[in-house]
């Protein structure tokens, strides 16, 4: 009887874990409201955009392509969803990544450098 209870509990926990793991929506859409209201301290500043371009080439271009055109493994970043996303949502994505989708966390970059990358992302020409 105890074994049966353990089995049922195991199934319930597994299903709950799977539901959490398989949350629907794009990464940007998964950003919590608290993160979305964060403001970019470097918004529309040209030196930050240039620094962001340098960091993008080093950290992001290998997967997302130069100027964010996208590659087989990672989606393009020069698209409406990125342009329209709040800076806070993009910051949340950079901080957390997505283990499921193969996007690593960039929390090891200082916050200022992540904001610089976002400043650059916002200037990419939309397709």
């Amino acid at each position, binding site marked *: 009887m105890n074994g049966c209870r353990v089995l049922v509990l195991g199934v319930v926990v597994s299903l709950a874990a799977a539901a959490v*793991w398989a949350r629907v929506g794009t990464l940007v859409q998964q950003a919590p409201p608290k993160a979305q209201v964060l403001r970019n301290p470097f918004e529309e500043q040209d*030196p*930050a955009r*240039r*620094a*962001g371009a*340098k*960091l993008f*080439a*080093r*950290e992001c*271009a*290998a*997967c997302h392509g130069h100027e964010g055109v996208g590659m*087989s*493994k990672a989606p393009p970043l020069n698209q409406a969803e990125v342009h329209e996303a709040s800076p806070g949502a993009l910051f949340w994505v950079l*901080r*957390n*990544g*997505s*283990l*499921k*989708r*193969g*996007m*690593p*966390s960039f*929390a*090891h*970059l*200082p*916050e*200022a*450098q992540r904001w*610089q990358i976002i400043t650059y992302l916002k200037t990419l020409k939309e397709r």
Partner: protein
Amino acid sequence: MFAGVCTYHPCATAAEGPFFITYTHQMEEPGNLEIAIKNVTGKPAGGNRFLGSALEFEYGVRAWWTTEVYLDGQATAREGTLFTGYRWENRFRVLAREHWINPVLYVEFENINGADKSLLEVVDNDGEADLTGLNSEARSEKKREIEAKLILGSHFRGWTFAENFIAEKNVRHEPFEFGYAVGISRPLALAARPDRCDFCPENFQAGVEMYGGLGTHERFGLRETSHYVAPTVAWTVANGTSFTVSPTFGITETSARFLLRFAVSYELNQFGRAARHLFR
């Protein structure tokens, strides 16, 4: 093949911290290959000067899984040079999101001999005495060990904090051996300069790590264990090559007085994809 991959795809920066012993929770990016040579040199009391080296290949299999192979060797003055074995380690990130404290599980199998002087961890009462034996005798001792680590890491306002708890067991005999490593580091500048440059302050990371042994499960504690404090500096040049140096000071009687660690590393972005293209 290395040259082919390197020319096929731009080679980029290795963004790891400046630590030699302490692991952070940062994983290798999926598909990236980091090649590094980590060296340590010293002259133990009553022994000859040595240079221990570990050639490291670190590959990001998944965003949550990093695997590494080390090939170890050493050269000792007046004794010679020899290959001392290999290590295969795997790191698994446990939590999907970034938190205040981020755990990573580490499992390693090592097949080395007693002459190994790469000193990639300190457990039990490892100390200066282990560095003074003759290669001809020490190499006959086989060490096939399983090592597990709990890695905890945090990032806060540009600072990186890492704590490692180590448990090691020889697969044939001997008790569980324990050790620890902790580290803290920070880049010299938090924001990047707009222009490409080698000497920008954000390309430098400085930190300090401390590590040592904690005995065995039979006699757990600090008695007759070695402990080290090591300031460390890493510099990443614009083409992606990183140089790291760390003067290491033993702080207990059984520790080696002074060791100098230095490393060079290079990261190949999307090596896996480029290699697959080469063989198509």
